[in-house]
């Protein structure tokens, strides 16, 4: 088990190193360099040269690369070009907002999706199943930002239950904080829930058809024990994998949903920085969002040790 976990951690670290390297070389591959892009075509040569020097872009690539990596390791993310604030500070303000929305969305999504999938599988072709299937179909067919706008119109503008713009820090009270993230959370959570519901349903249906389920029934194991102990344990495994992979949907969703609700999260920071060609912020924002995703999936992999005995006892080498 520990070997498995060590291997997973090593893999995650390797992926993050590759992400950091890609971001580094990617942004330096911009035709004419990022500086020319930032200052615009009409900037003077001196201005370009000065900014290049400020950003350390006049150094050899290898030197820049080593600096970039060492800076990242000590948590020095550079300085924003437009506001001359430390990127670290900007990011530190943004991350809690994005994480709050994502966490609320995922929690809500799983709380809805798992029971919905189980109902769909156990009451196959009954009204409840059709309702769950249709809801899931609608859920995967709507972009998160559109769900956000719909929620804002109905619950923000018409009913006035929740604020339509802004975010309240949790330090100012749990209730205002929750009220601020409910709508964006649902917006990112709904498409996520839809994907997980479908997986839960199809995985459980497959498991219920297995031979050992019939055996369990034949030897007189009760309905609920059969469902929750025999079937669920096996059916959950692919669901956990999908729940991890689909987190990409939540994190991608927060980017657009933050814009809908005017929340200064990581996604907003990323998009603004690209529109302003503020590339020190861009690279850190991309790195962080990917980092969160990779880390979450690492947690999912480790969670496998708890639910999959093959991994727990060290049999699985995957």
């Amino acid at each position, binding site marked *: 088990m520990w070997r498995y976990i060590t291997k997973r951690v090593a893999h995650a670290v390797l*992926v*993050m190193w*590759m*992400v950091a390297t890609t*971001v580094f070389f*990617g*942004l330096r*591959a*911009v035709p004419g360099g990022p500086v020319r*892009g930032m200052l615009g075509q009409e900037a003077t040569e001196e201005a370009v040269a000065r900014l290049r020097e400020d950003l350390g872009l006049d150094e050899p690539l290898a030197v820049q690369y080593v600096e970039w990596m060492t800076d990242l390791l000590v948590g020095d993310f550079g300085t924003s070009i437009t506001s001359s604030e430390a990127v670290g500070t900007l990011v530190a303000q943004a991350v809690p907002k994005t994480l709050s929305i994502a966490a609320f969305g995922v929690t809500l999504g799983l709380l809805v999706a798992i029971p919905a999938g189980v109902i769909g599988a156990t009451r196959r072709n009954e009204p409840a199943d059709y309702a769950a299937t249709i809801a899931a*179909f*609608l859920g*995967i*067919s*709507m*972009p998160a*930002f*559109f769900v956000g*706008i*719909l929620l*804002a*119109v109905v619950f923000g*503008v018409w009913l006035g239950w929740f604020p*339509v713009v802004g975010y309240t820090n949790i330090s100012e009270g749990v209730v205002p904080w929750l009220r601020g993230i409910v709508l964006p959370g649902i917006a990112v959570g709904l498409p996520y829930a839809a*994907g997980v519901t*479908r*997986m839960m349903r*199809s995985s459980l249906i497959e498991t219920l058809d297995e031979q050992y389920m019939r055996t369990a029934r034949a030897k007189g194991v009760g309905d609920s024990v059969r469902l929750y102990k025999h079937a669920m344990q096996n059916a959950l495994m692919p669901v956990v994998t*999908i729940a991890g*992979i*689909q987190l*990409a*949907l939540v*994190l*991608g969703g927060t*980017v*657009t949903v933050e*814009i*809908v609700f005017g929340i200064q999260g990581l996604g907003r920071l*990323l*998009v603004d920085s*690209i*529109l302003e060609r503020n*590339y020190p912020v*861009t690279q850190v924002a*991309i790195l962080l*969002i*990917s980092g969160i*995703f*990779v880390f979450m999936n690492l947690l999912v992999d480790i969670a496998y040790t708890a639910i999959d005995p093959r991994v727990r006892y060290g049999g699985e080498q995957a």
Partner: protein
Amino acid sequence: MTDATDASADTEADDAARPDGGTPAYARNTGEFGVGEVPQEYETGERVTAHRSTGERIVEALTDNKLALAGAVTIVALVLVAVFAPYVAPYGPEQQFGFMQEPMGQSTADVDGDGTTETVTHYLGTDSFGHDILTRIIYGARISMGVALATVAFAFTVGTTLGILAGFYGGWVDSVIMRYIDFQWAFPTIILGVGIIAVMGGLGWLNVVVAIGIAFIDDFARIIRGEVLSIREEEYITAARAVGMGDARIMFKEMLPNAVAPLIVQATLMIPFAILAEAGLSFLGLGVKPTTPTWGLLISDGRQFVSQAWWISVMPGLAIMFTVLAFNTVGDGLRDAFDISEGEVN
């Protein structure tokens, strides 16, 4: 190895059983049962099901599944509407009427340019500039669906090529390509798209196609690699080698046609994601910037007016929803018909 010998023995037997004048005399079955007849005791009653081409299977899947058929019809209608937008749309995309008219609202204007004014109905209302929303959505369909189809075509081509190369050559080629594919999922689709737009600069539709398409490469590569790995050991590949076919011809003429079904299903499943991703990029202001807006841009245009005129954002959003829904029902129907398990999709 034993498999191969068994199989070849079977083929010989089959050949001998065929009333085939081309068979050499020593191989002909001219025994007591006559040419080509199978002795009764060897009749197993097993029949090989008639071969159906991928196209036939797709048509069958669609006609069997009502929901998928409805989706397919919707898609065809949408594509026709997009292609013939100037003829279908009630007005010109830049024509202006009263601002923020409610759905079914009417305005009086000289629409057909004959000097007299008419009263016209805006089925989906007008936006903050007085543009007819239905007209804008119809024109927007061109970019939104065009980009989505091009994106999937791009990912299909690149992903399939990479996957075939990885599966066919194995070894270090496989390692390098699959390492790359494994690493690519570290970026959520829209983040990858946004990052690539940051590098290439947005605006052009080709940039958007590449930015979104790269994120979908891995799905195609993984599928075809798996198929190629199993096809590689088939006899007809050995035969193709024996007659001296080149690697490229074996990969693309022999292997690809035999592995294309799951790829088509995957492509159908990816189109809705491409539409959603394109809408997302447009919404962020990082997508194609054509003269007539895309669906994502239309939603974004209406966002600041949601409290006064909800329909400006909601109508194009519904357009996205119905389009994506139609593609999803078709993709789902095909997946069931080709018996492909629900896997990673994002």
